[in-house]
């Protein structure tokens, strides 16, 4: 989808060595990780990440037997000042767009990026365009 980022998500058991294994696979495939997040639920967790080459990462992990998926998420460039997250979340909420999860990182070019998984991507894009925030897509992530 235009204007979105491909996120890699995978299932991992919550036990010693699993993250190392995943990192090893990515390392061997020469994948550079831009943003990374683990959500844990007891015995297992879901690892989500934004990488420089999502399709390559997907194939590498899948061939190692992981349950992995590609998810469309939205990348929002935030002003690195107080109140910018509030403005984004408030606008989405008022327009009935639900945020399933979110995580943020700062690029080496000092850009604050917010990754959002929402239940209505076109809706979210419209809202965010209206409040004049810039959306970042996969090609831009690759060239970071």
């Amino acid at each position, binding site marked *: 989808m235009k204007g979105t980022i491909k*996120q890699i*998500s*995978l*299932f*991992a*058991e919550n036990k010693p060595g*699993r993250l190392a294994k995943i990192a090893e696979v990515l390392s061997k495939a020469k994948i550079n990780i831009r943003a990374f997040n683990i*959500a844990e*639920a007891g*015995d*297992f967790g*879901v690892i*989500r990440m934004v990488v420089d080459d999502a399709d390559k990462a997907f194939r590498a992990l*899948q061939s190692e*037997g*992981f*349950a*992995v*998926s590609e*998810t469309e998420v939205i990348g929002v460039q935030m002003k690195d000042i107080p109140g910018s997250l509030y403005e984004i979340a408030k606008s989405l909420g008022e327009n009935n767009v639900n945020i*399933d*999860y979110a995580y943020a990182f700062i690029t080496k070019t000092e850009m604050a990026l917010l990754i959002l*998984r929402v239940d209505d991507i076109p809706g979210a894009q419209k809202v965010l365009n209206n409040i004049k925030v810039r959306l970042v897509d996969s090609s831009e992530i690759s060239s970071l």
Partner: protein
Amino acid sequence: MLDYWNAAAERTPFEELREIQLRKLRQLVDNVYRNSLFYRTRFDEAGVKPEDIKSLDDITRLPFTFKKDLRDNYPTKMFCAPLNQVVRYHASSGTTGKPTVVGYTRGDIDCWTTSLARSLTACGLGRGDVMQVSYGYGLFTGGLGMHYGAEEIGASVLPIGVGNTERQIELMMDLNTTAIACTPSYLLHMNEVANSMGISIKDDTSLRVGILGAEPWSLETRKRIEDLMDIKAYDIYGTSELSGPLFTECKCQDGIHIWADHFLLEIIDKNGDPVPEGHKGELVVTTLSKEALPLIRYRVGDITVINNEECECGRTHPRIMRIMGRADDMLIIRGINVFPSQVESVLMNIPEVGEHYQIIADRNGELDEMTVRVEVTRAAFSDKLADLMKLEKKIKEALQKVLNISTKIELVETGTLPRSMGKAQKVIDKRKI
């Protein structure tokens, strides 16, 4: 206190017991051949006639009987006595599909009662004892079976059944209960509840004997129970098909005495061939005295070892050692029979679940716990945690509906469960039994 309920019968020399067994076996075979269409057909198919049974070894010429036969002949088509002579029925819960019905003539009830009277006497119980029967009453054979046995030896019976634990403990105190019959895990639970009430079963009650069974339990559990409550804990054995609870250990606690004048035992291997004494195998029982529903070479399914040596207690009847497992990999979880095939059929009906799974039985504190490990396939995977938790809940509820027990679901990575290693790998029983 009596040493034996019936010294002559319990100390019959082994060779004489064998003679009694042969005589009764021949009568039984003759009787069922004439009275039961089921057995006559089976014997004819196997090409065996009653007159072929000339020695006890000839029993191997007779076909086996299976639990499936009881189901297929539901409710009473396998009965050999006229139904108007049946004075009681019991029935299984039907957890594994169709329930089974068992019936008893007056003589069957007497035989059952006498069997337990001998056993309870061997545990040092008798007149003056107060026996709290905390096995379930009703269609389950445990409660009523124990009740009649305890009354027979002159004990005062407290027919309380299962549950209402605080009341159990109050009555145990007020009526000076000396013996209790229940599952080992329930007794341990009772001990915890007593502690929470500020009561010590060890110090504040007269309890001295536990007749414990109806679920697998280990020697370690026995030791814990005996130490915690300062009682002697005896293992009990029986199944509803054979009558219900029938046999216990004696004071030597070295195997369960099986009354050989009423029951003939064999131990067989996977191919159905006899295994030498002292080796483990599947228990096969022939009921020599039962009238309503005699069973010939009944495959109980429990794995054990037989010991024909005379016991230190002076009893000559063979003993079986603590049950080591099941031939059909059935699990008993909190008293409920669980067949892995049931779990499999539930899982395979859930599209998100892959073909690989594993069942783990374990003990958490005193309670059995069953965990089902399921691989998360690409189809089942979602990057949203809530979806995965919903899947866990869906599997748990589907299993609960069929098995009647609560299970723990563990989602694991694709490819991590053992593959094509045979059936046994799918079930891991970590409980020490």
